[in-house]
């Protein structure tokens, strides 16, 4: 009886949090530099997965595989299989433009366009034709800014330049810009590395809310941040995944010595 109840809970969780991205044996080469060695990782739907590991271990590289941003890097080659909802995103019938509309990205360094705040957020919906008219577009821009927790600070200067905002505001503007395209998955590459603790807290809060509707993969160098916001954690080391699993379990009782060493700050 007890066992069966457990199974029910498990089944329900799988329905909510089934695997959305399945990575199998992914290798990435930058010219002769073999950056990722046979990485396999499952990402669950509507959860936050954090990628941790020492600098240069391939976290950003892995992230860029998922929206095929590596295609834009000269001399970069990707092998292996990355399935998004059962479709290989490197397959011939997949259009990378469409893929990137579905898998949004927030970069390590805030990179707003040198345009107005409004135009920054409106750019994605405009190129994808998501709004039928001006009112629709206004609506999308405002809700995106609201979701990104920026609306209060910018609502009376929507038409001033996005580059005139502070670093933390710029990063939230970039998040709003990614949200405006209404993606399924959001990739975040160290989104808080340039932010002060207050702005960081705001972004973390935001991520926590966003996971209701979005699947989030986040690269971070802060163990505390990973522990606070993510449900799954993967530890990268020298281009390989050493350990992956429940965040709580990984941080409390890591099974690999190297993980243990990294999270306790002995190396990295």
């Amino acid at each position, binding site marked *: 009886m007890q066992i069966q109840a457990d199974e029910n809970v498990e089944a329900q969780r799988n329905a909510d949090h089934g695997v959305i991205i399945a990575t199998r044996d992914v290798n990435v080469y930058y010219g002769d530099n073999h950056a990722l060695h046979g990485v396999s990782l499952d990402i669950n739907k509507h959860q936050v997965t954090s990628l941790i590991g020492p600098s240069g271990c391939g976290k950003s590289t892995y992230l860029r595989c998922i929206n095929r941003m590596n295609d834009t890097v000269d001399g970069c080659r990707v092998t292996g299989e990355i399935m998004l909802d059962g479709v290989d995103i490197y397959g011939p019938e997949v259009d990378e433009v469409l893929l*990137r509309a579905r898998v*949004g990205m927030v970069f390590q360094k805030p990179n*707003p366009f040198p345009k107005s705040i409004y135009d920054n957020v409106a750019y994605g919906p405009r190129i994808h034709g998501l709004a039928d008219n001006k009112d629709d577009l206004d609506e999308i821009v405002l809700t995106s800014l609201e979701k990104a927790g920026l609306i209060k600070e910018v609502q009376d200067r929507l038409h001033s330049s996005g580059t005139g905002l502070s670093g933390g505001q710029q990063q939230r503007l970039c998040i709003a810009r990614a949200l405006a395209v209404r993606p399924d998955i959001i990739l975040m590459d160290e989104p808080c590395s340039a932010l002060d603790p207050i702005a960081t807290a705001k972004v973390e809060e935001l991520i926590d809310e966003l996971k209701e509707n979005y699947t989030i993969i986040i690269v971070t160098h802060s163990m505390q941040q990973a522990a606070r916001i993510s449900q799954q954690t993967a530890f990268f080391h020298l281009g390989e995944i050493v350990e992956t699993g429940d965040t709580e379990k990984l941080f409390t009782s890591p099974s690999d010595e190297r993980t243990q060493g990294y999270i306790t700050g002995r190396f990295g």
Partner: protein
Amino acid sequence: MTDQAQKEGGNAWQSEAFIKNLTKRKRAERRFRLTGLLAIITALTLLAILLFSIVSKGYTAFVQTFVTLDITFSEEVIDPNGTRDPMELRSANYSKLVQNALRAKFPEVTSRRDLRRLFSLVSGDADTKLREMVENNPELIGKTEPVSLLAGDDVDMVNKGYIDRNLIEDDRRVKDMELSWLDVLEADGDIEIHFNTGFFTNGDSREPEKAGIAGAMVGSFYTLVITMVIAFPIGVMTAIYLEEFAAKNKLTDLIEVNINNLAAVPSIVFGLLGLAIFLNVAHLPRSAPIVGGLTLALMTLPTIIIAARAAIRAVPDSIRQAALGLGASNQQAAFHHILPLSMPGILTGTIIGLSQALGETAPLLMIGMVAFIADIPSGFGDPATVMPVQIFLWADSPERAFVEKTSGAIMVLLGFLILMNAFAIFLRKKFERRW
């Protein structure tokens, strides 16, 4: 390490070697600044000398001497049959009127040779003016009126002080007799200096007092229009393609090297190319702005491509990634973000390229734009010349009066170059403000 520092009595910045090094560095910096200042002063001095010599020689090109004569519009010369037929009025011998007026003024001159000299006091342009006066107002016929007529180039030169009266007569272009006539005219208040509108409205002429740069200006304009219309879009598209779309491989490397080399090719080579392709193969009209423009476009292309590529490369990669990350296609990223952001740099490069083209002579000599052309071109296919070639032609002319024309034309050319650069700065500022 720390032990040693302590033994020496303090930290590194307190040590003698450090302080010595510091004074040395300061001295080096002062020296460098001084050299820089000297360089700037030298450059500015040279520039000032250049400008001074051009302006001091050329400003007189903008004024011209006029002689006022009492012209009798006698009916028997203009319209002997009294029909007032426009055809008749048009073909009448108006120089006769001028000659009569001069004869009346100086009745003592009788010999044929002296008369010829006397008549040359007034420019050959005078009859055109008289004809226009009569055609506009036939009432004039039969009356006598004082008319201000363009003086001949010798009179002009004397009046502007370019001919030394103290030289012995044989070494002087203007003889004693002419000088005495001039003195009479001067004494009667018949000699005046006016602003020379003809310099800006006339085409070239064999007679210096009539020669203007309007033909060359219009020719330069048509030529540059062609150059810009061809070179700008092709150059910018090439740059965008190479930077944003083309794969980076041996072939694109080769193309890059070749474009850089093309920018360094002597311009006359482009003239030969233009001659071979546009004239000998395509059989476009000789001496025409269309051919000149195409040839200069060939020459300007590498400059524009190089400037545009540099401007595009200067756009931070993060902008490109932001656009691509949102699902923009390469083309959208290029045209929505990269191109507008690099436009100021591209425009500056383009205008520098066009300024070069505006000042270019050699390639145009090869395609026949060096011919003497008196008419102002009215289209891209008309024979034309351009300002630098006009300067070259005038500098090559024997008449003394063309010297000031040459400097005057150089001043106009420099004026246009300054205008173009000002326009480049204006555009750059305008584009910059938008972000």
